[in-house]
């Protein structure tokens, strides 16, 4: 008798566990109806290409200003040596 009970319990648990796995895949019938469903806005398909790349040139301005200062300093130093 115990053998039948334990086999039935095993089958029940197995079937129950399969059912538990399948549950989230199916929508809740309480929420899946005309009143509960919220309207989803229809978005237009966006197939605009990404903008073309920029070709900036002023990335090293600070370095150029510093180089100008350094050249002026060198000029001053050379003049003092003379």
């Amino acid at each position, binding site marked *: 008798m115990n053998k039948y009970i334990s086999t039935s319990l095993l089958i029940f648990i197995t079937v129950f566990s399969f059912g538990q796995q399948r549950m989230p895949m199916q929508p809740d019938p309480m929420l899946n109806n005309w009143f509960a469903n919220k309207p989803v806005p229809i978005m237009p398909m966006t197939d605009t*290409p990404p*903008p*073309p*790349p*920029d*070709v*900036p*040139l*002023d*990335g*090293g*301005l600070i*370095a*150029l*200003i510093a*180089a*100008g*200062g350094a*050249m*002026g*300093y060198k*000029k*001053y*130093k050379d*003049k*003092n040596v003379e």
Partner: protein
Amino acid sequence: MNNNQSNSNQKGKQLRDFGAAFSDKGFRDFIIRFLSTLIILTLIYEAYLWFTEQQRELDWVTYKVSELSHALATALGVANCEFSCFMDGCRIGVEGRMINVIEGCNGLMLALVYASYIVGSGGVNTSSLVQVIVGIIVVQFFNVLRIGMLVVLQDIGGDAYFYFVKYIFNALIYLSILFLWILKPYVDKALNRQQ
């Protein structure tokens, strides 16, 4: 240990030299002229940009650089090279492989730094004026060449475009400015000899 000590002594000496340089009237005048010219020119340029933005137009320099670059790319053999300008910049190239020339790409800020150094170093005189005009033309020539070549490279495709846009053309323009600065004393001498 001795090496570290000698390095720190050398750095200290360099800092003292730099401090001494500031106490020298000639160097101080150069720095003040250089930075004040740069600030004034930048303010004028920013005001011009603000004005064009209010007019909902693209600035003239960016437009002209883009137009000349487009002409160069077409002359270099880019077929169906298109050119369209908007408020924020110009797009040049073949459909699907265009490049965007915005205000930061027109090279004018570099030209302003170059001009500021010339004025800071030599003051406001005929020689400086000639060098500023020639320098701006040289910078813009290299910039048009750079953008035209980038359009061609973008059309060809491959990794070359990335390296050229990131390193080679930028280095070329910055080095041309440094080269013009190095040439300045010789140009001054030549112009003064003529006068």
